[in-house]
């Protein structure tokens, strides 16, 4: 056979193609690398639920890396995972469903930015975010809904919500636009270095958000070997082939819950709220986001191993 033909791989026996060592590529990168990648994007989506399972380490890394003027597609309910980025000037635009601290109070940075008009708020809600994400996950043009927005204020306040005529009934219904993001970041309890991840809590928002994103970065409390993952494939909530990068950050969801791993640090959330309300937001960001040399330094600043062990105990104890 002559040379050009050899360029057809099916003509080359496997043993001739076989590499010296057959090595599966690891997707592990450093927290700082992840932060720079996120900061280089214009839109980010998040998972988690309220003050649980937020990708806080990645968010702090992105702020440290100088993330600015980004659009955020948050989980349908969230607290510090949206409020801190707003305080740090990371966000220009937010799809709003719920941002608040519930029994601890309202979200200070969010309310300040809203009052000062420094944040572009898209008046959204649970179905807008979930169905919009679902449409983007499948590259579908929009998500039609009926008997939902009729009579509500959102159609007047949210210009991204349009109308379309249902070709089957002839009735006018509403159309939610696809919500894609350039990067999706999430917290998982365990992941392997190939991207297979187990999120033990949450509400499954992460699956469609991963499919709706150009790039997926996972932070995991623990990196485990393949034998842990293959023990039960149904436990893998995010298949590795959906994932670009994995970052190892023990207690990376702090100060929020990591489902079945450690509890929310309520005292730290109260400290955050107090400092934000007292106009000491920059000091908080300096102390807990910008100055820490690395994630372990951050953990030391919030109480170190003693505090982390207490948070683990709080969860497993009930």
């Amino acid at each position, binding site marked *: 056979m002559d040379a050009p033909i050899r360029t057809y791989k099916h003509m080359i026996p496997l043993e001739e193609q076989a590499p010296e060592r057959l090595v599966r590529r690891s997707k592990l990168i450093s927290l700082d690398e992840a932060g720079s990648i996120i900061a280089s994007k214009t839109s980010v989506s998040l998972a988690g639920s309220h003050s649980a399972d937020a990708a806080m380490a990645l968010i702090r890394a992105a702020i440290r890396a100088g993330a600015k003027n980004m659009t955020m597609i948050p989980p349908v*309910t969230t607290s510090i995972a949206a409020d801190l980025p707003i305080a740090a000037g990371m966000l220009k635009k937010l799809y709003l469903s719920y941002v608040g601290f519930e029994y601890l109070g309202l979200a200070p940075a969010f309310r300040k930015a809203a*009052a000062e008009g420094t944040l572009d708020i898209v008046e959204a809600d649970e*179905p807008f975010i979930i169905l919009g994400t679902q449409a983007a996950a499948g590259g579908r043009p929009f998500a039609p809904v009926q008997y939902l927005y009729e*009579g509500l204020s959102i159609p007047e*306040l949210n210009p991204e919500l349009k109308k379309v005529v249902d070709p089957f009934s002839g009735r006018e219904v509403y159309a939610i636009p696809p919500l894609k993001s350039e990067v999706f970041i999430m917290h998982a309890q365990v992941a392997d270095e190939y991207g297979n991840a187990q999120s*033990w809590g949450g*509400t499954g928002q992460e699956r469609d958000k991963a499919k709706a994103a150009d790039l997926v970065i996972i932070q995991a409390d623990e990196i485990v070997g393949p034998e842990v993952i293959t023990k039960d494939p149904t436990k893998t909530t995010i298949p590795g082939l959906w994932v670009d990068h994995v970052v190892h950050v023990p207690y990376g969801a702090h100060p929020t819950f990591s*489902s079945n791993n450690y509890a*929310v640090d309520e005292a730290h959330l109260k400290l955050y709220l107090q400092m934000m309300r007292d106009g000491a937001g920059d000091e908080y960001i300096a102390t807990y986001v910008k100055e820490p040399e690395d994630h372990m330094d951050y953990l030391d600043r919030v109480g170190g191993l003693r505090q982390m062990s207490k948070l683990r105990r709080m969860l497993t104890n009930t």
Partner: protein
Amino acid sequence: MAEIATPGHDRYSTAEFIAILIARYCGGDRELWGSGGANQLVSLAASRLAQLTVAPNLWLFSGGAGVYNSKFDTLPIGTWDPRAGHGAECKILLSDIVDNGTKGRYEGDRIGRGGSGYGGLQIDKYGNVNMIGIGGPYPKLKVRGPGTVGVLWLGSGPNNLYLEHHNKRTLVEKVDYRSGNGWMDGGDSRARTLDGRDGPQFVWTPICVCDFTEDQHRMRLVSVHPGHTVEEVVANTGFELVIPDNVPTTTPPTEFELHVLRTQVDRGGLLKKRRMTVG
């Protein structure tokens, strides 16, 4: 605005009382969908209490964790608290909840609705709810709300409203913005707009219980809690409530009810600490 302090409150908190009222409401053999929303601790406690006493077929949902029929005896700090998942029977996706909501039926109407409660910045006489904000013109709001989340599911069918603060700022003639459809503009406006889906049934507040009139669907006083009066309710409501001739006192919590609530549902006493106000 005053912390509620009334006769009986050495014996129970208003939050405990409302949880017991909602639990009573859930009584019966029918399959019910209980609780739901993320921060509805009172409703969550009520559903668990009902399940343990009078509603064996109630499905207790912890929305934030996405699980059904948790077996907790210590109330979690939110339905998103992973501890809300203790002993659960199944876990669903948020998209399942969205499917229920857009379908306007909970599991194809197999299931009635029990202790699901919605609150808001404002609620008007037709039970419409506002979580967006107060004042305007939008986006220049006097008070910026936290967002609508799932309050629009009020439009999906017959739910209930729940208020932690009973005052004229919250109970208004007309909401500034509408995040959730109550009976809309009254009469048959809701039925015409939302494919005949039923509207809100009851309103639980720190000082009274209301429902809605049959035709106009205007909010109507049903009973006033012990230690409170019709006059107090009227004085703290920003619109004209329908007041029947006979307004009884809400049956107070019994020792049995408080005992089960405190020993099998809320061992941590979260509801004791819950802050509710009038005025």
